C-alpha cells in the first residue's frame, strides 16, 4: 500500500480572531473548492469534507461540495470526512457517491461515521437512543448496496427493499468504504470484525493514545478471519505546515484556539486554550501535526512507526484559518512533506519485505 497524505475541511464559518471578519457561506464554499484544486495540483492524495449541520460550518451536504471538487481536480481522491451514516439513507448515500465516482472517473470514497456531532439526528427524525443500532444497520445496508444491485434487504429502521434497482454503479469495481473511529475500543473492534479500513481521529493528546485502539482493531480483524496486515488504517488529525517551526505555531494558534473555544466545551461553555497548552500539543510526543515541513515529516513517520498507518488526513483550517495561509500550508504539505514521507515509508516497507 502506497502511503497517502491528504487534507480535510469542515468548511468552517468562524469569525477571524485576528481581523474580526466573518466570511460569508458563499465565500467559504468557493474557498473549499479552491482548497481541493490546490491540494490536487500540489500532488496530495486525498481531499475530504466533513458533515456538520450548523450555521458555523458550510459542510452540511459534503457530497455536493465533493461533486464540485470533482469538476476542478484530476487525480485526488474525494472523500467524506465523515458521512454521518446513522442519520442517512444508505441507498441515497450510495447513489450520491456513485455519481461522484462517475464525475471523477473513480475517485469517490466514503468514510462512514457515527457522528461526534449529533445535530443531524433530530434534523432527520432519528432517535439518539438508537445510536449504536442505527449505525450497525445502515453500514450493513450500505455494504450490501455496494455489493449488488438488484438488492433484496430487510432491516429495522427503514422499509425493506425487494429486487431494488440501485443505480448508478461505481465507475470501476467498487467505491472504498472506511469507518471512522474516535478511539472507543468497541468501535475499533466492530470495525475490525467487518474487515473494513479504519479512519482514526486523534484530536489532542499523546501521540501514542491510540495504540490500544489499533491493537484491538487488528486483533478483532484477525479473529474474524481477515488479513489484518492488509487492512488500511488512517489517522485524521489537526495540523499546519508552516515555513518554520515558529511561523507554523504563530499562524495556527489563534485559529485553533478559536475553533476549540467554539467546539470543545467544559461546563457547557467554551474555554480558552492557552498558548502553553497548545505548544505542549505541538511537541514531538503529542498528536498535533504542526511545524516546519521537517517537523511534520518526522511526526508522520512517528505515526507510521507507532500504528503502521497507510494514510494521514490533516485538517488545517479548523477555527477559520484564512484562505491564503491555508493554501500555503496545503502547498507545503504536497510539495515539501508528502514526497519525503512516501519515499521513507516505501523504503521502510522495502527493508521489511
Amino acid at each position, binding site marked *: 500500500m502506497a502511503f497517502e497524505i491528504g487534507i480535510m475541511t469542515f468548511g468552517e464559518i468562524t469569525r477571524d480572531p485576528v481581523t474580526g471578519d466573518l466570511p460569508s457561506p458563499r465565500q467559504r464554499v468557493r474557498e473549499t473548492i479552491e482548497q481541493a484544486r490546490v491540494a490536487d495540483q500540489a500532488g496530495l492524495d486525498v481531499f475530504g469534507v466533513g458533515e456538520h449541520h450548523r450555521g458555523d460550518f458550510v459542510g452540511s451536504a459534503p457530497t455536493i461540495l465533493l461533486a464540485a471538487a470533482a469538476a476542478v481536480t484530476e487525480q485526488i481522491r474525494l472523500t467524506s470526512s465523515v458521512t454521518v451514516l446513522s442519520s442517512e439513507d444508505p441507498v441515497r448515500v450510495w447513489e450520491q457517491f456513485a455519481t461522484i465516482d462517475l464525475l471523477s472517473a473513480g475517485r469517490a470514497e466514503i468514510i462512514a461515521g457515527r457522528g461526534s456531532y449529533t445535530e443531524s439526528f433530530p434534523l432527520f427524525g432519528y432517535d439518539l437512543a438508537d445510536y449504536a*443500532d442505527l449505525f450497525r444497520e445502515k453500514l450493513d445496508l450500505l455494504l450490501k448496496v455496494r455489493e449488488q444491485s438488484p438488492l433484496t434487504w430487510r432491516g429495522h429502521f427503514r422499509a425493506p427493499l425487494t429486487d431494488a434497482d440501485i443505480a448508478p454503479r461505481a465507475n470501476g469495481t467498487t467505491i472504498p468504504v472506511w469507518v471512522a473511529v474516535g478511539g472507543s*475500543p*468497541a468501535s475499533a473492534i466492530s470495525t475490525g470484525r467487518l474487515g473494513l479500513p479504519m479512519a482514526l481521529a486523534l484530536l489532542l493528546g499523546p501521540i501514542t493514545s491510540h495504540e490500544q485502539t489499533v491493537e484491538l482493531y487488528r486483533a478483532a480483524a484477525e479473529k474474524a478471519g481477515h488479513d489484518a496486515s492488509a487492512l488500511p488504517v488512517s489517522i485524521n488529525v489537526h495540523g499546519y505546515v508552516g515555513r518554520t517551526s515558529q511561523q507554523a505555531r504563530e499562524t495556527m494558534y489563534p485559529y485553533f484556539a478559536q475553533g476549540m473555544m467554539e467546539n470543545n466545551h467544559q461546563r457547557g461553555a467554551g474555554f480558552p486554550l492557552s498558548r502553553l497548552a497548545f505548544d505542549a500539543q505541538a511537541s514531538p510526543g503529542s498528536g498535533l501535526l504542526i511545524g516546519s515541513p521537517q517537523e511534520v515529516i518526522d511526526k508522520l513517520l512517528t505515526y507510521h512507526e507507532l500504528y503502521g498507518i497507510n494514510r494521514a488526513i490533516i485538517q488545517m483550517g479548523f477555527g477559520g484559518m484564512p484562505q491564503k495561509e491555508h493554501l500555503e500550508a496545503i502547498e507545503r504539505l504536497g510539495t515539501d512533506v508528502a514526497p519525503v514521507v512516501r519515499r521513507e515509508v516505501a523504503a521502510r516497507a522495502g527493508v521489511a519485505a
Partner: protein
Amino acid sequence: MTAAPALAGAAPAAPAAGAALRVVVVNGSPNRQSKTMGLVDAVLSTLTEMVPFEASRVDVYRLGPGFTGAVERDDVTPEVEQALKRAEQADLLIAATPVFRGSYPGMFKHFFDLIDQYALANKLVLLAATGGGEHHALVLEHALRPLFGFFQAMTVPVALFASSGDFDGTMLLNPRVHGRIQVALTDVADLLGARAGNARTAGA
C-alpha cells in the same frame, strides 16, 4: 413488576447437586436496555461455563411506589418484600449499577437501606459498575465496597468496571473487560467450591 424472569444465558438447575446456586442481580440502571445489564450479561454467560446456577434479577427502578414510598421494611408491599428476600437469600449477589452523579443512584441505595442489617453477612457479593469514562472506575472501591463493608458481606476481590466506549450499544466488546470478568469469576468459582465442600463435610 418486581423482578425479571430468569435471565438469558443462565443455566438450568444443576441436576445432581440438589438446589441450584442462586444468583441474584440487583440492577441499579433506570434503562430497560442498559450497558450495566450488558456487563452483567457478559458476567452470567461466562459464569455459565463454570458452575450451574439459576439467575434472577431485581430492577430497583421497576419496583414501583410500594418501594419508593417505603421508609422502613415494614412499609413495603409483598412483591417488594419478596424481592428483598430473594437478594437476602442469594448464594451470589451481583450488585450492578451505573455511576450517577459520582456514585450509585439513590434508588439503588434505597434498596439496600431496606435490606436487613445482617442478611448479607459473609455473603458473596460481586461488584459491577458502568460509567461514561474511565475516571469513574474507582466508584467500585470508594462507594460500592464500603456499602457492602457495612453489611459484612464478602465482596469478591476483583470488581468489574466498563466504560461507554467498551460497548457497541449494550454489547460488551472490549476483550480486556472480558478478561477481567474471567479473573473475577475464577475467584468466585473457587469460593463457591470451597463453600460447597464445607457444606458437604458439615452434612456428612
